[in-house]
Each structure stands twice: as structure tokens, then as C-alpha cells.
């Protein structure tokens, strides 16, 4: 006589029912079971940003991260290549590397019993190995070393990981959207980015998707940021000063009109990617940085340099959880920690070969807009937190995304639309349903429901197989 407690697991129809053409159910934001399934399906079936190769330039360098609740270890091997493994000793499970980044020297040595792994993850040595003689050591998965992540791709130094074997391949998943990364990299006279500086880390007590949607929400700045950007512009006017203030230069565009946003356009791509600022951008009117143009023209020729610098895309969302600002050289990662908890890490890149001043502006932008001390950030976080609690209200359970909705709009088109459209939000939810359900069985008594499976961050089915294919 008791009711079952899972409502969404192994229930693709229930997942699909959460997304309607013009609105989405609050459970996508507030339900912990949906969140858990996002970790197991969405974040395993899609290509997730894991780090930047410039963080690990030398052999033995490593970076650690978590994707879909999984601890990962990214390292540069003696062969000069990047490898991605699970950050978990093959013996008893000790996290091998404890720091965000570092250099392991010639090997990763597990601190518990001293098993050693090469910097590609393969097993190097086991102390007192004779203790395993005759025990079937070579039949056990540990003999292969750290469990590898097979599907990863280093694209112009951006490292993306797909945990599951299924799902689309890298090019099919990102398609034309890679043009934003290309443009950001091309802005270096040498065609190379260097990740530099600690990220700004900002904790949000809200669902990660609110942040992602906000990246292309062009109807909020003039309202929500009146308190920050609006006040800044007003106080600046009161000073009567004629010079340019670097912070005002960055803040003032947040007070742009609806008309400006309508006209600057949004481009959507298949699989949930998209960007604002097609024909114009809030980043269009920044001051020249002395010496930069010369370097660019020298490196690329004037025509190409002009084309590169003329592409002033505003925010590019790479579904599911990063946002890239090409003209500013920042990358924000929206790390999902719980249905109501998201850590935002905002990273800065130096354009190799460009003047210092450009990187100084990147840093200025980052602290002015993305820091936990940012007044713009305060405005936004207040909204997210109010939504997270407001959605508990039963009076109306759906969140609206219908601005400029067209019932004929195609789900996976590449198209440019009015910049105040919520089309990109709809685009994201279309992809969300696909990657949530694509490997979800509808049979409650089979699949990943065997003992030892399911509740932990990813399904056990196939887990044993994964590391086998080194």
C-alpha cells in the first residue's frame, strides 16, 4: 500500500512532461531527484568543459576537477599529450591528487600505500608486489592503472569531456558554435590563449540553469541592474567628468535600452548552444588598447584582423554549463552542486602576444561583473535566490519562457532572432530533454536498478567496461 518514491528515474515520459513549448515545470529547478538525474544523464551524455590545456603546459602537470559528481584528473604525459583519468587510486580509491593543479613529477604516487601511476594513468609499480602473486592480480581492473575517461577532446586547448560512450561526437555536438571559441583564440596575435590568474569563485544558492538562462536574458539588465549599472551611470553624470572611467565603460552598457537588445540579435545553434550580440554587443564600444591593433594586423593581415575584432559576440552559451565572452576573454563555469546550489567559477585568459593592458581589462571586467563582491553579481544572485524560494509556491508551478515564441519554430535550427527572444532558453530545454532521456530506460525493474547502482552519481551499468579500453 505504499507509493514508490522515485518519480523521474527511469521515467523518460515524466522528464519530457516537464518541458512544454512555452514553459517549464519548476521541478527542473528545485527537485533533487531531477538534479541527480542531470548528473547521471545530462552531464554524462554531453561534452563538458573540464579545463584549459594552458593550465598544464609541462609533462607531469595536472589539473583536477569534478564533472557530474565525478572526480577527474587531467594530466600532461611525457609524450606531451593530455590524458584524462578518474582521480581515484586503483587500489582502495584514494583521491590521487588533492590540489586544483600542480606538478606530479614523473608519476602520480598514491599517498596511502604508494602505488605509482605514470602521468598517462597506467600502472607503474606496486610496493611489495609479490604479495599479489597467485592472487589473480592480472585479472583485476586495477592492473590497468587509473580508470581512464575515454571520450575527451582538446579543442584549441579547451578540454571537453564526455563521460558516457553514447551521445554525440564532439563536432556533431558543438557544430558551428565553436566559432566563438575560435574567435576568442584568434584574438591573440599568436592564436593562443593562456589561462592566467585564480578564478573568481562565487557561490549561488540556486539552480545552475537559472544562471545559464540569465546569460541570454536580455530583458533583465535595465531592470535588475538599475541598482548597480544605473546608479553608476547616474553618479558618473553627477561628477561632470569628461574622461572615461574604466569601470563605467564596462557598466554603462548594462543600462542599454530594450531597443538595443532587440536589434543586437540572438543566434541559436542545435544542441542548446547559442549567443547574444550578433550584430552589435555591449562590448562594442570599449576603448582601444594601444599597440594591440598593430599586433593583430601584423599577425593576421588587416582584413582578417578586422574580421576577428569585428565579431563582438556578447555571451555564448555552450550547453549545458559554460559561457564564453570572446571580446573579454572570460569563461564562466556554472558548476552544479545541488538542485539549489551552484558554484560559479569565472576564469580569465591572456591573449598570447597581446599587450598587458588587454589582460588588465579582462581582469577588471571579471571583478566588476563576476566577483562575489560585484554589485552586478549582487543584483543577479538576489533574483536567483528569490526564484529558488518563490518556486515553492503552489499557486502556479510553471516558469514562463514564451517571449517571442513562434509555434512554428524548429527545435534544432541555426537561426538569428530578435535579441529579446527567449528562444535560446527554449533551445536549451529542448537539448536538456534530449540528453536527459537518451539513455534512460523506461523499465523500472531492469537496467541500472541492480544492487550497487543508481543512487550514486552515475549508473553502474557499463562502468566496469569503461576503463577496459585503454
Amino acid at each position, binding site marked *: 500500500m505504499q507509493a514508490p518514491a522515485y518519480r523521474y528515474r527511469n521515467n523518460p515520459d515524466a522528464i519530457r512532461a516537464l518541458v512544454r513549448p512555452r514553459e517549464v515545470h519548476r521541478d527542473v529547478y528545485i527537485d533533487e531527484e531531477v538534479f541527480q538525474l542531470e548528473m547521471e544523464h545530462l552531464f554524462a551524455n554531453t561534452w563538458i568543459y573540464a579545463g584549459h590545456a594552458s593550465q598544464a603546459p609541462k609533462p607531469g602537470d595536472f589539473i583536477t576537477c569534478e564533472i557530474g559528481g565525478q572526480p577527474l584528473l587531467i594530466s600532461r604525459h611525457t609524450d606531451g599529450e593530455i590524458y584524462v583519468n578518474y582521480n581515484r587510486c586503483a587500489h582502495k580509491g584514494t583521491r590521487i591528487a588533492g590540489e586544483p593543479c600542480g606538478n606530479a613529477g614523473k608519476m602520480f604516487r598514491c599517498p596511502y600505500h604508494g602505488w605509482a601511476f605514470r602521468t598517462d594513468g597506467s600502472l607503474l609499480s606496486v610496493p611489495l608486489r609479490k604479495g599479489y602473486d597467485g592472487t589473480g592480480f592480472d585479472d583485476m581492473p586495477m592492473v590497468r592503472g587509473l580508470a581512464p575517461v575515454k571520450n575527451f577532446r582538446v579543442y584549441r586547448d579547451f578540454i571537453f569531456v564526455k563521460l558516457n560512450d553514447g551521445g554525440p561526437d564532439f563536432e556533431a555536438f558543438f557544430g558551428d558554435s565553436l566559432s566563438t571559441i575560435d574567435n576568442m583564440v584568434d584574438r591573440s596575435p599568436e592564436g593562443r590563449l593562456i589561462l592566467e*590568474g*585564480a578564478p573568481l569563485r*562565487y557561490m549561488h544558492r540556486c539552480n545552475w540553469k537559472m544562471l545559464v538562462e540569465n546569460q541570454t536574458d536580455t530583458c533583465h539588465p535595465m531592470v535588475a541592474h538599475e*541598482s548597480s549599472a544605473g546608479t553608476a551611470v547616474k553618479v558618473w553624470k553627477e*561628477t561632470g567628468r569628461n574622461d572615461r572611467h574604466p569601470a563605467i565603460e564596462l557598466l554603462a552598457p548594462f543600462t542599454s535600452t530594450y531597443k538595443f537588445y532587440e536589434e543586437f540579435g540572438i543566434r541559436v545553434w542545435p544542441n542548446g548552444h547559442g549567443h547574444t550580440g550578433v550584430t552589435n554587443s555591449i562590448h562594442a564600444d570599449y576603448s582601444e588598447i594601444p599597440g594591440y591593433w598593430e599586433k593583430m594586423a601584423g599577425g593576421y593581415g588587416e582584413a582578417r584582423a578586422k574580421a576577428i575584432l569585428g565579431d563582438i559576440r556578447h555571451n555564448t552559451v555552450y550547453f549545458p554549463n559554460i559561457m564564453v565572452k570572446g571580446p573579454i576573454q572570460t569563461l564562466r563555469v556554472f558548476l552544479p552542486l545541488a538542485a539549489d546550489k551552484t558554484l560559479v567559477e569565472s576564469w580569465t585568459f591572456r591573449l598570447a602576444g597581446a599587450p598587458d593592458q588587454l589582460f588588465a581589462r579582462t*581582469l577588471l571586467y571579471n571583478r566588476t561583473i563576476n566577483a562575489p563582491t560585484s554589485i552586478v553579481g549582487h543584483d543577479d544572485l538576489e533574483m536567483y535566490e528569490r526564484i529558488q524560494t518563490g518556486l515553492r509556491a503552489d499557486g502556479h508551478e510553471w516558469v514562463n519562457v514564451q517571449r517571442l515564441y513562434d509555434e512554428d519554430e524548429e527545435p534544432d535550427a541555426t537561426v538569428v532572432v530578435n535579441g529579446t527572444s527567449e528562444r535560446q532558453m527554449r533551445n536549451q530545454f529542448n537539448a536538456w530533454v534530449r540528453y536527459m532521456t537518451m539513455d534512460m530506460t523506461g523499465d523500472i525493474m531492469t537496467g541500472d536498478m541492480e544492487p550497487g547502482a543508481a543512487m550514486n552519481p552515475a549508473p553502474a551499468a557499463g562502468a566496469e567496461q569503461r576503463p577496459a579500453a585503454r
Partner: protein
Amino acid sequence: MSASGAGGPVSAEDVIAFVYAEARLLDERRYEDWLDLFAGDGRYWIPAEWDQTDPVMQPSLLYEDRFMLDVRIRRLRGARTYSQKPNSRCVHVLQQPSVEAMDEAANSYRTWTPFHYVETRSDEREYFNGWARHDLMLEGGALKIRLKRIDLVNLDAPFGNIQLFM
């Protein structure tokens, strides 16, 4: 409250009293008076890296001039500042400031002050700990802040909103 009203030399006591008084203005929400403590080109800086040396070529959480501090204060007072509905409050508990330099020639008076800082809003409360460094100068006969620098002990940890001033 601050030093040498009569134009005499600055004493260590003046400098220490200044640091205490500065924090108190923040506790009492007298932000405009607080802003007056900054020199014309004064700066308020919170580094984002340990032992940071450069505020602009390395990531900072905050590096504001008087103008931007004024913007922040006006925003805190603003009618449409929803992140201040309800508003935040704070309290500073300072260890006695250590006077690091009393350099009349360079017009530089410096202190180092470990602190405990609590910021609260609604039923939420967060605390922060670190060291404040004040670089003071005489300007118009009064001590003013050339640079106030806040090094948080856990500066690399994630933070939620920090809306007031440490």
C-alpha cells in the same frame, strides 16, 4: 576622531585611533562619512590571490577608487536595490592595529590589523577573517586612506554575496 586636528605631527595613537574609527563608521552604516576618510586617489583593495603584489594585473575581488566606492554606497542606499531588501549589517572586531610605519617624509603611516568581520542579512550570517592593511597619509591636514587592503585568510574559497565593506 582622526589625527592632528591642530596640524601637529601624527602619532601612533592617532593612526591606531583612525583604524578603529574607520571600522566603526562601517558598523554604524555611516558610509558617506566613511568615504570621506579616503584620500582623493585612495583605493580599497581585496586581493584574490595569496601574497598578491599587483591589484590590476592579478585578479582582485575588489579594487575601487573613490568614485566606485561612492557608486557602491549610493547603491546600498538606493530604493531599487533589491539585494538590500532587507538590508545587510556588519560588525568588525579588530585586534589592536600594529603600526608598521610612521614615515613623515614619505607621508605614509601604515598599520596591520587582524580582524573578524561578520556580515548579516535577514536570517543569514557569514563571517570573514583576515588582515587589514592601512596605508594612511596626511591630506588637507587630516589622515586619509591611501590604500586599505584586506587579505582574507581563505581568499581562494567560494563566497556568497559580500555586499558591505570589510
